[in-house]
């Protein structure tokens, strides 16, 4: 028993301070310095994007913690960088009514994930992910309001298409680009 307690203490002391605290670890830090966090308990906050990969008892998702979590790109005037995401695995029992993962026009559920960070996990053949032990929904998925599409590109395109087709039809061999 004392041995277990001693090992636990050693384990806790070896965990980075950031991981021990309630504060979240940026995914970029996990990816940039994976050795420092490997096999430790970490907490990340971010948006579930793409799809829920439901495989039997587990769910596999990608959680992004880039700037688009706070303000989606469609509501910005300019992109502010690439996505930063990490794979998260959790038991299907943890899955609540989170709503649709983030895609175009949908901001996915914002969640806080606490779990063990596994870098190049040998059991899965070298995959890097967080094995979640706790998953808290901070904000359910929602539709992002976007401005109505301008009709100008479509109108210009339609006029050019019709004009081009008319010009080609005036030639004896219609649609010459299909005949060399």
């Amino acid at each position, binding site marked *: 028993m004392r041995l277990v307690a001693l090992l636990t203490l050693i384990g806790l002391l070896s965990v980075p301070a950031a991981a021990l605290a309630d504060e979240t670890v940026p995914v970029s830090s996990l990816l940039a310095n994976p050795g420092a966090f490997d096999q430790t308990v970490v907490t990340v906050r971010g948006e579930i994007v793409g799809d829920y990969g439901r495989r039997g008892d587990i769910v596999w998702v990608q959680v992004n913690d880039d700037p688009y979590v706070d303000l989606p790109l469609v509501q910005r005037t300019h992109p*502010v960088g690439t996505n930063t995401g990490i794979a998260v695995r959790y038991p299907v029992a943890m899955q609540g009514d989170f709503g649709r993962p*983030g895609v175009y026009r949908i901001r996915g559920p914002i969640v806080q994930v606490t779990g063990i960070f596994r870098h*190049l996990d*040998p059991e899965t*053949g070298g995959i*890097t992910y967080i094995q979640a032990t706790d998953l808290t929904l901070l904000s359910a998925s929602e539709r992002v309001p976007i401005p109505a*599409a301008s009709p100008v590109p479509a109108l210009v395109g339609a*006029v050019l298409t019709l004009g081009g087709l008319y*010009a080609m039809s005036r030639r004896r061999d219609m649609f010459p680009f299909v005949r*060399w």
Partner: protein
Amino acid sequence: MLLRPALDDHRSIANDLGRIIGVLAIAALAPLAWAIGKGEWASAGTFVLLIGLTVATAAFADRIVPVRKRTVNWSHGMVVAALTWLVVPAYSTVPLWMSGYYGRWIDSYFDAMSGLTTTGLSLVQDVDHMPESVNLWRHMLQFLGGQGIVLAALMFLAGSGALSLFEGEGREHRMFPNVRTTARFIWMVSAAHALIGITILTVDGAAGQGFGVERAFFHAITVFMAAFDTGGFSPMSTSIAYYDSVVFEAIVGVLMIAGAMSFGLHHAIWHRRTGGGNIEVRTILTTLGITVGVTVVGLVSTGFLKDPYSLVRIGLFHVLSAHSGTGFATISTHDLASWSGLAFAGVAIAMALGGMSSSTAGGVKALRVAVAVRAMADTVREALLPDGAVVGRTYRHHGTRRLTPMLTRSVFAISLLYVALYLSGAFVALAYGYDLQPALFESISASAAVGLSVGITNPTMPVLLEIVYILQMWIGRLEFIAIAALIGFTISTAFGK
């Protein structure tokens, strides 16, 4: 004395160029339909605009010079091929740039060039929330470029200039005497692979990974186009790691191999002939085995990976991805950048060597490696044998061929030009302060149309370096000859009499 091209030459080139651009209008119909189906109206408008611009360009080019007066020779075909690969990416940027997912226009041009040349390096931002139709367009560019834009045009077009246009895209081996029939065969092979590949990936996505059928189909169609055309774009930011599926990776691996195979080999297999005696097949199997071995030893010796399962899943997949010129990854950019020593060397050499000739892959190509090795071996044999002994200089590649001095010179020249291309981008990156290893890695990746990245390619990269990578992708895809023809044509226009 340099002869200045006549006005009719310019008109003729413009005419051909315009009509090839017209083919882009047909390709844009698919993402337009997807955008309408998904209610992505802003994107739908940009696809209509792209169609309008390409149709108008084709019509305008058609009015410049009447078809009956058109003259196309070898030089014209090469110039048209070179210009096509510069101009088509510019048109292709319309939906990309207008989507708002690129910081600068040049970034969208970079992605279009990367897509068409099947490189796979990308500067898109927030791809995880990108409209599906625009994401589909990115992947369609890889399919269109992998098969060959000019080749796409040649499916419908035929005539005196067809052969030079065909060769201008870096293709050498025709399966049929007629270029048009060859073009149709290539597209038929691709369609057959598409049908099978997309079906299997959709079933795996829906049944194996638990995606909805609609999303599974979207992933399948995009990943298929990126895998079979050895492109390397992926619909999600984490590349193939997004799927965390050994089965999915295995299917993708088969598609990457199929894409890196020459269409001549596809033709042989199609007609139930084995490619076992083919020098190119033996060479690529040998180099793949060597680079996998070198990489695995490197990964073990640096302690990056130790267990056999991870070594096979990570090591084999990434070398295959590099050698086929695909550029898919299942580990993060940071992890890939940390590969050093033999692991770095294995992947870099695999990227530099590339796939087979007349395939969708880039790089030096296995056939050139084989011919160069055979030529060197023959030279050594000749030195060892008594005077007057005759060394048989032949090799097997879709039949027995003679290894002529001219062919040998050509192979060494092109191979050296590739080395120079690899080094040129590395020098520019070094000038910007990057370390040698990542600078060389990224440069090879761009030139050999691979797409694996160690992080240099990102939206904040210097514009000049971005332009250099664009040029490397363009030159590497066309394999120098068409570029030389374009330079010659430009010089003749400027200084000829």
